[in-house]
């Protein structure tokens, strides 16, 4: 009899509706208004690559060891260098990074012995052309320009 009354009074459905209603509070809104408010990403976030330079002399930290290019599963890093006859070291000439094929696994970052190559917190990587996805040394050192959306 009790169960019949419960069935008749729709208690099971009202319980669910009440749960739905409880979650309607405006204080509980968790939707991010993306282009207006950018979400903070984690410190370890693996985003756009960056080639670090020395903070004072702004010389590159890269020693052209080619380990990142060897570690990359997609083989999208190309490093070229030439031997400096005075210091007997390799000087970096070009560094190309194809972001369009990158899956941000972080293996290049792990392989770098001098913390020159790093995956940063930038995540807005859209471009109008495919060529724009291939980053040269200048782009990697300066980073992508901040995007401003107008509407």
């Amino acid at each position: 009899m009790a169960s019949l009354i419960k069935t008749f009074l729709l208690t099971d459905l009202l319980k669910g509706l009440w749960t739905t209603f409880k979650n309607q509070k405006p204080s509980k809104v968790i939707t991010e208004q993306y282009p207006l408010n950018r979400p903070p990403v984690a410190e370890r976030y693996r985003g756009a690559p960056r080639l670090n330079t020395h903070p004072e002399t702004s010389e590159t930290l890269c020693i052209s060891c080619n380990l990142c290019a060897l570690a990359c599963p997609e083989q999208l890093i190309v490093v070229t260098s030439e031997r400096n006859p005075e210091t007997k070291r390799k000087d970096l000439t070009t560094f190309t990074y194809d972001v369009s094929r990158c899956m941000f696994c972080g293996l290049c970052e792990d392989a770098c012995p001098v913390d020159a190559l790093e995956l940063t917190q930038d995540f807005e990587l859209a471009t109008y052309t495919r060529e724009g996805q291939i980053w040269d040394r200048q782009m990697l050192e300066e980073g992508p320009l901040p995007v401003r959306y107008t509407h």
Partner: protein
Amino acid sequence: MAETTLAPPEVQAETLLDSNELVLNMGPQHPSTHGVLRVILKLDGETVLGTDCVIGYLHRGVEKIAENRTFQQFAPYVDRMDYVAAVSNGLGYCMAVEKLLDVEVPPRAQAVRVILTELNRIASHLLWLGTHALDIGAITPVFLCFREREEVLKIFENYCGARLTTHAFRIGGLQYETYDTFEKECLDFCDLMEQKLKEYHDLLTGNRIWVRRTKGVGILNAADCKDYGVTGPLIRAAGVEWDLRKAQPYCGYENYDFDIPTAKTGDTFDRYMVRMEEMVQSCRIIRQAVDALPEGPIKGKVGKVIKPPPGEAYVSIEAPKGELGYYIVSDGSLNPYRVRVRPPSFVNLGALDKMCRGSLVADVVAIIGTIDIVLGEVDR
């Protein structure tokens, strides 16, 4: 289409006489097929006489890619098979290579691995619950589930820098040490999850529409489960206490106290209850692992160049969807000679025809949802 996949002869003869048979394509763009699964339904009115699955729309040749990558380089690719449970995939692959190398993983790394895989199990089940309920027509759970899943993804992002395709583990242990608030965030999430599970039960478990749409639908009994090689929540819902975390403990699961939730009939409702209970058990494991998180190194003795001796290894783990196995053959070079994956989604999908026969078209949607497939893993 082969005639052998159709209904039993007596049903076939009947349908031939009045020829009401209708062949209907469901998918690959149908939203309730969870990706790009195409099911060819053979119908008599609303009754399903037989089904045929067409897969391969998401085939990327992951096993072949492995042959052209070094052992470390292939690790990010396994995340892209079952992308809902990327951490479990990474664990299985790393354990298989560690078995080839005969490397011991330090206890701290093992405990962190357990925490992350259990968090991933909860995230995977939350996604399943949301989409399964959405398929059946309950719209609220999907929003609530995604809200809670976000908390897990935030922990992943803080830990390893990626949310979905995490690449969290490395061969031999871990790459990243835990961060300052890691333990607290995990415990807070467990507290939150236990509250929220009550909400989900309020929304669905007693709901008469939910019960009528799931009870007695898609029954797969224990014998059939074993015949089809079905594992995971599906076999546990049929009453078989089979969980690889208990049956062949790995990664230190023998140290944690947890139960294997089971049910009796093996219908859609039972599988729902089993998965709901599994989330509670995962919270229990996470609490124990966080409380007893040992100090020490996070990476075993693995060189920079991984070159396993010639041989083969098979390792299977309990992924959220069932038994996930990695079979790796090494010929002593830098690249694996062959990698074969035993994906739980693919094997479980084999039982779809058995579960669908004789049911209604609307139930096919519920049955596909209850198997919990990820097409990235089915097609690989």
